[in-house]
């Protein structure tokens, strides 16, 4: 079934076609003839995009996620001030300028300033970078651990499965936040040593987080939060991947691959993994949101990023002291950005769940096709 048979094309569909064509071109340049051999796969992808384009929650989610990523990448570059520009030392009138208010020099502060005269807009922009990098690092470093252990556990079964599951039990037996606090509070000293002996790592991290070299000592706390989240995060993942692997393992194509003499790892990577990718993608999208939320919670508790590093959770904490005095924008404004970002990932994940489920999508597509005729 091709996309034209099912849907009337809309503007968004042209956009996604354009995007998909670009990707196919890139793959073709690496592996000539790929698009011809995988035509049905590409048609399937187009249908998925078209379905996503027709899901209102998916579109809202996509817009929120895309703007978060764009702000995360370009925010620090376009921020009017640096996150450590304490304007209050220039002029005390830079303190507590309300959103949209003007500074002593006549400059407009769209989101106001805080107790140190820092521009809240710039803090939010830099904070997006922090959240984005934390979420990316947790996913890139953490997801493979969870996925590989889940594949092993589900595929081999028996004693190794029992062992891995008992370990996940331990991690899931009490609230992840508490465990993450414990790890994040104990790790910084070790990480500080690691960073001091590996300046290249420190430099990479400084540029990733877009930080001033003077804040290098504060990197350790930030990195320990990332490691702590990975440690509490993989077991849930392993559980889900194991469950999907257990059912995928019983398929005939796995049997066939075995009969053809394919090794266990080959089967896991070439046959099982691609078939459980859809639920993993959905959970990953939803989890980016919860990682951002957990990280904000940890830094709110004073365990993650240390000031002056801009971090959404920490900004809310620092600003909360002034809430009683009526300076609400210090804590309430940055929180809205956390809410919108996490909501975006949740909406997108929710929509992806429907789009990536071939059965649910197919039934809709058949109905639409009939109608179109």
């Amino acid at each position, binding site marked *: 079934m091709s996309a034209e048979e099912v849907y009337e094309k809309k503007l968004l569909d042209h956009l996604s076609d354009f995007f998909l064509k670009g990707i196919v071109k890139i793959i073709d340049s690496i592996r000539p003839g790929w698009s011809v051999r995988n035509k049905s796969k590409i048609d399937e992808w187009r249908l998925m995009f078209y379905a996503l384009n027709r899901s209102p929650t998916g579109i809202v989610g996509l817009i929120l996620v895309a703007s978060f990523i764009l702000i995360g990448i370009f925010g620090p570059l376009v921020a009017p001030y640096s996150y450590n520009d304490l304007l209050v030392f220039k002029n005390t009138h830079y303190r507590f300028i309300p959103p949209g208010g003007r500074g002593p020099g006549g400059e407009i502060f769209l989101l106001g300033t805080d107790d140190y005269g820092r521009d809240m807009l710039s803090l939010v922009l830099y904070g997006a970078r922090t959240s984005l990098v934390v979420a990316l690092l947790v996913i890139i470093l953490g997801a493979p651990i969870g996925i590989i252990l889940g594949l092993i556990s589900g595929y081999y079964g028996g004693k190794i499965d029992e062992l891995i599951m008992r370990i996940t039990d331990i991690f899931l037996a*009490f*609230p992840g936040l508490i465990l993450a606090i414990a790890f994040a509070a104990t790790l910084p000293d070790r990480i500080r040593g690691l960073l001091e002996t590996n300046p290249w790592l420190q430099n990479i991290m400084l540029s990733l987080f877009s930080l001033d070299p003077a804040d290098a000592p504060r990197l350790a706390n930030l990195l320990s939060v990332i490691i702590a989240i990975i440690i509490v995060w993989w077991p849930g993942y392993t559980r889900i991947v194991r469950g999907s692997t257990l059912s995928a393992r019983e398929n005939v194509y796995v049997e066939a691959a075995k009969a053809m003499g394919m090794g266990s790892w080959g089967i896991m990577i070439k046959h099982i993994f691609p078939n459980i990718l859809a639920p993993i993608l959905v959970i990953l999208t939803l989890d980016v949101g*919860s990682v951002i939320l957990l990280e904000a919670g940890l830094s709110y508790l004073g365990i993650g990023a240390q000031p002056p590093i801009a971090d959404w959770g920490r900004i*809310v904490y620092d600003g909360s002291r002034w809430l009683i005095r009526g300076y609400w924008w210090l804590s*309430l404004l940055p929180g809205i950005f956390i809410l919108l970002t996490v909501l975006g990932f949740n*909406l997108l994940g929710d929509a992806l769940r429907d789009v990536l489920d071939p059965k649910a999508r197919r039934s809709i597509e058949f109905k639409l096709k009939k109608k179109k005729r």
Partner: protein
Amino acid sequence: MAELKRFIVRRLVTFIPTLIGVTLLVFIIANLIPADPARAWAGGEKASPEVIERIREEYHLNDPWYVQYVFLMKKLFTNDIVSPRTHNKIWDDLIFGTSQGVAGAGTKYGRFFITLQLTLFAFLYIVFIGIPLGVLSALKKDSPLDSAVRSLALVGVSTPVFWLGYLLIYIFFVRFRVIELAGFPEPTQRITGIMVIDALLLGENDIAIQIINRLALPAFVLGFIGIGVIARITRNAFLETWNADYIEFGKARGLRKSRLMRHALKNALVPIVTVLGLQFGGLLGGAPITETVFGIPGMGRYMIEAIRNFDYPALIGGVLLFALIYMLANLIVDITYALIDPRVRY
């Protein structure tokens, strides 16, 4: 029932390795800190060597780690170990209550009971707002109310708890002073462990009202995620049973709608109870942040303070309790299945 008993015993036995694993894990984390805990406990840089040495002796800090671990677990078992930070026995801090307390005020109530009370309040919100919302949303399927309830679940899990807390503090305390944020009145006598119930039992109604007034907002914040989640689960479960054959049959027999709804809801309870049980764990996990926002001296705050001050005995005691409650909550969920649904057998 004999089967159920066997099932419970079997599950309780599996608790033991998990609890050992959990405490060992936290013990290892605690030992990752290169800092000298004895020095920190004795008061930092200025502490005299004799005091530090005495603390080392007392907590067996000079022994290998497994000796330390066994010592700690044994002492926790007999409630014979004193937190180097609060100078109270750990289970007194957490459960039994102390005579002369931490943070200014003594309390007859352990930190755990303060958190438990908060959690129960939050649970009330979840049950009495979440379930009716879910049923309403199912009855008015595809109406604006329905989509509002469904998006409430997504908004709930996306909201940073601390931000919601400050938002409500700003509205209800800074703008319109209708709530209280300071102090924590206690009834004169501890009976059940839950302050409000004790106050009501003792006839100290004004204290009960003060406690409710103090906890209404934090409990709502803590339960906010759960309300949406339960509404969504209730909606889906209720829709499924609402279309079942026995409801059709009931309609054909001309039963009243309220009667039909009772049947449908009862059959929808299994998934609802599962998620409620999971929510209980989630509520405990969310307690540290909510307690920090509203300044409630509960167990979550206790654990955070313990971690910040390298107070491992208290940390491990708290983790042990957390894990135990978590697992017990799951067990209770499984048992309630059998009580709600006679088709479930163990």
